[in-house]
């Protein structure tokens, strides 16, 4: 485990994202936001909604069906498996990247950047910094 705190690791990783706005770390089992670094303070209500929205997106069985649309074989076991590794949401003002952690599959990170940030760079920077963030947990 790293000496750095999770909050500090998120802060450091967000600096590498051009126009990064917020970075958070989430426990998908409980839906709890374990840590968040944001460029400016957000009301707790917002953070709670974001955490529950992301948890739902990663965990919903019907949403996982999307991965089976182009698969030839669909089994009940497939539906029970974990869903996506990465989800990018393009909003009107912001781009949000949700990424399932590698070391802890039941954890995920959330990065929010302004929509001007190239999504490829956002994805690349988050992939690069994830191991360091995970080390602190």
């Amino acid at each position, binding site marked *: 485990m790293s000496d750095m705190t999770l909050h500090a690791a998120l802060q450091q990783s967000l600096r590498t994202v051009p*126009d990064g*706005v*917020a970075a958070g770390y989430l426990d998908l089992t409980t839906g709890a936001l374990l840590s968040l670094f*944001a*460029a*400016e303070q*957000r*009301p707790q*209500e*917002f953070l709670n*909604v*974001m955490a529950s*929205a992301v948890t*739902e*997106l990663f965990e*919903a069985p*019907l*949403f996982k*069906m*999307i*991965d*089976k*649309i*182009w698969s030839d074989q*669909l*089994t*009940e076991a497939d*539906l029970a498996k974990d869903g*996506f*590794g*990465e*989800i*990018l*949401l*393009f*909003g*009107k*003002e*912001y781009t*949000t990247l949700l990424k399932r952690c590698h070391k802890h599959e039941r954890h995920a990170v959330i990065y*929010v950047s*302004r*929509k001007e940030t190239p*999504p490829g760079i956002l*994805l690349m920077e988050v992939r690069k910094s994830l191991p360091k963030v995970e080390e602190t947990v």
Partner: protein
Amino acid sequence: MDVNAILDESLKAFSRPVASKAAQFILMLSVIDRTILPRQVIFSNGRGQLKLAVAERKARRLDDAGQSVADSPSDLVQRMTRFCLEADALKHEIRPAKPPSSPPGHGIAELVNAQQPASVTPAGPVGEPHSDGFRFDERGWPLAIPDASSAKSLVSAWLVYLWMQSWLKRHDEMLGDSVLMVTTEGQRSRELAFRFSPKATQIMSLGSAELGRLMAAWRVEGTPRQAQQPNGGKTMGMSGA
């Protein structure tokens, strides 16, 4: 439980009023796509019947005398659409039939993609011209599917659409409601993309080379919404650094 049973149960669960007409249409397509051996399929909608001769996953309409009618795909799908829109509760019966003497008819992708916008939505055209992937209108009605799609794929896409609509309605103020893209990683090299908008939803599978083109085409337009003070209103959008 086999896969068809899972999908059937999901179809029942989602046959709620807002989506029930689309559910009935998808159910008709599903019955056609699962029928390999020659069968006569009789759909009842509470007002009348629609008889189809189905074999090899393709359907032809039968007239009242039981004779095969050479409808074009657009004619047949228009009848199916009208039949579903009038339906109170769709039922079907499958009877053995002799092998068809005429050509086998039309598959589900051919039927879905032959729809004329006016026959789907009386108010006029919906969404964009035909393009790749699955496309649904705001009611969940399938407007386009990839060629050679199975009913299983269509049902999966439709269930995702319904779930996603529900999710976005609850969270669009936070995330924006226009475009969503999903990527998978690891052993699965496929990348999936969604576009959600008030009028139409599109779900696609892409290669990475297509991603840039798609993102440029789907770029979110519009005036950024004004963020409000934390306690000043319902908008929850982040106002940025």
